[in-house]
């Protein structure tokens, strides 16, 4: 029997989140609500120095004065910030020397995720700093990195061990007052990763972090700081999956990248937070601020594959401060069912001969809304700045939406800015053509979507590209009618 639209709809409804499970580990969770005492308590819990506590309090006071932004093309019930618990840590906080000491239940969780530490340890070339509900529980390959003088640890550890670096750079790219969510994150961030690559060092392996929300009602506030000193290179991978949950979960991360003269940072993300069920219930709110600073001849590349979250608000950006700096943004954003994504980038050209490239691929299915929002800003001193932007949208079915909001501000006459945009639909003719060659509809969609996304998938490191392709297929199963 031929595959009908009804079959597809049925499949769509029964399609559940692949990683929807919940690990029952005893946690120490703060009471709900947010005030100065809670901020102090978080800081104390983490045994932070006084300057850090003060920094958090300053952020909190700014946040209190701010309003939640409404300009994004997304609609959702605003979180009640007094109804969220701002700290949750796996109960005992041991320092593991070997994998045998890790809580077996935690290992089981990793197994379900397909990233068991056992495997990870054997996977040469990848060091993993796994963030399980706000606290780093295991770090591998640290010694290899240490030999090169590379620091790769949790941000909490960095605050203790490398206060001079943290103090100097934290908030230098995304200040506390930058925006509502960044201020909130600055006040209450639980943990995150810190990375420092010394002068002239090429990091010999891909650094990767897996994030995971794992405590009912706990907001996740990650803070990441990556510093690439002069002439250094690092490729950083960030991937995440979250368990299925009924209530909305707030995720407001901040990532700051600093590429000093001649340095290069590649930052790749595969994001698969729980998107809510087929009726649009539940799902993660993902309000993220990501920004990088490029000094002279430096380069920052953001590559992201966004398949999850109920609501996404995210604009990884580059400030091209030094002459000849290069910024790149490669993005695939997939929305299905009732998901809403408003994502894009900002390329701020300050230095001479700065160059930026934006390739954005939006794929919308179901009743979802997918928006690209980008700003290319050429400042008056930025002589001979160049930008190329390409925004492609692919639609499936008749109930979804794709939107493009490109903003261009050029204050220097020598600027060269190109913008290309296309919108296409997966056609029945394309599907039939594939069917006729023996390829069923699911596989045909995967093939077409992978083809559409290829320019971006090619930018991902090998091990991530495979995972990303799989995610695209999972996210879009049964979505063409």
């Amino acid at each position, binding site marked *: 029997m031929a595959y009908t639209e009804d079959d597809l709809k049925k499949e769509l409804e029964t399609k559940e989140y692949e990683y929807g499970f919940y690990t029952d580990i005893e946690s120490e969770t703060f009471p709900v609500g947010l005030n100065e005492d809670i901020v102090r308590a978080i800081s104390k819990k983490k045994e932070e120095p006084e300057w850090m506590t003060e920094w958090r309090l300053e952020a909190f006071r700014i946040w209190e004065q701010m309003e939640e932004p409404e300009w994004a093309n997304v609609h959702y019930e605003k979180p009640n910030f007094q109804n969220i618990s701002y700290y949750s840590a796996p109960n005992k906080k041991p320092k593991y020397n070997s994998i045998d000491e890790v809580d077996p239940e935690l290992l089981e969780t990793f197994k379900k995720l397909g990233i068991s530490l056992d495997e990870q340890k054997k996977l040469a070339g990848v060091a993993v700093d796994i963030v399980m509900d706000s606290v780093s529980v295991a770090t591998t390959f640290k010694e290899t990195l240490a030999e090169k003088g590379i620091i790769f640890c949790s941000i909490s550890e960095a605050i203790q061990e490398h206060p001079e670096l943290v103090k100097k750079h934290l908030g230098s790219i995304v200040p506390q007052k930058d925006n509502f969510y960044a201020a909130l994150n600055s006040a209450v961030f639980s943990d995150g990763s810190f990375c420092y690559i010394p002068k002239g060092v090429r990091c010999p392996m891909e650094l990767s972090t897996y994030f995971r929300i794992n405590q009912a009602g706990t907001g996740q506030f990650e803070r990441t700081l990556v510093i690439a000193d002069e002439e250094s290179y690092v490729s950083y991978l960030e991937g995440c999956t979250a368990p299925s949950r009924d209530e909305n979960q707030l995720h407001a991360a901040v990532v700051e990248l600093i590429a000093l003269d001649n340095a290069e940072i590649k930052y790749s993300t595969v994001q698969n937070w729980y998107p809510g069920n087929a009726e649009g219930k539940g799902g993660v709110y993902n309000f993220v601020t990501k920004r990088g600073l490029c000094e002279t001849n430096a380069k920052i590349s953001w590559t992201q594959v966004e398949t999850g979250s109920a609501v996404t608000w995210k604009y990884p950006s580059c400030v091209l401060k030094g002459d000849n700096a290069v910024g790149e943004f490669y993005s695939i954003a997939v929305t299905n069912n009732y998901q809403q994504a408003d994502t894009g980038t900002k390329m701020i050209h300050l230095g001479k001969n700065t160059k930026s490239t934006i390739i954005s691929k939006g794929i919308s299915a179901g009743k979802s809304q997918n928006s690209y929002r980008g700003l290319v800003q050429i400042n008056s001193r930025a002589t001979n700045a160049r930008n190329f932007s390409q925004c492609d949208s692919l639609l499936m079915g008749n109930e979804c939406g794709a939107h493009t909001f490109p903003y261009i501000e050029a204050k220097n006459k020598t600027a060269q800015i190109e913008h290309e945009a296309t919108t296409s639909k997966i056609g029945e003719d394309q599907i039939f053509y594939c*069917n*006729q*060659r023996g390829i069923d509809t699911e596989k045909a969609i995967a093939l077409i979507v992978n*083809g559409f996304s290829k320019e971006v998938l090619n930018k991902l490191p090998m091990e991530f590209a495979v995972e990303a392709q799989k995610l695209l297929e999972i996210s879009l199963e049964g979505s063409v009618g």
Partner: protein
Amino acid sequence: MLEIKDLHASVEGKEILKGLNLNVKAGEIHAVMGPNGAGKSTLANIIAGKEEYEVTGGGILLDGEDIEELAAEERAHKGVFLSFQYPVEIPGVTVTNFMKTAINETRKAQGLEEMPAKDMLKKIREKSELLEIDRKFLSRSLNEGFSGGEKKRNEIFQMAMMEPKLAILDETDSGLDIDALRIVANGVNKLKGENNAIIVITHYQRLLDHIVPDYVHVLYDGKIVKSGSKELALELEEKGYDWIKEEINA
């Protein structure tokens, strides 16, 4: 191999095929000719299993099995191949990747292992030589930016790769220059064997100079109204279709 009995079919309520009969045996080449709007492409699409077409009467048997309820991919798995009149573009998917997926999906459906990469490469090399296709062409996105002739040649390349039991060539000659026509026809002839059959749908005689049919059928107003040997094609070329219309209406 293929038996079409009193086939009635419609699109969006409009009847296109009105009691069509056709018998194709293994080892045979059949040509189906006819004026525009006679239902030639509809016939091709119905055999291949396109969903918009509704069969309202009669049936299609492949090796004695009624295939009407089968999805297009299931028919493909049983060896039905359609060379499209207007092949679609799939950006970002290379010809090689597309063929690899098509062959392995078909093998999977037949309970076979995936074809080893070495064998796949060998086959690609062999068939691309047969159709005089530049290897660089195979790394391009499927049909994207291809000329009309390249698209058709690529269809026949795919046919060579899939080795179908029943191949239907829907206006494969349109858009081909004389050299390309010769190459494509040569490819088709090499693929012909005792165990497979080919249906050539065309407007013109010229393709049939190169691919010599065992039978020629005239499709007019949803029915096969005349069948004959290859000489019938020459007669049609010379006299057009009007005399057939007159014969029927008389």
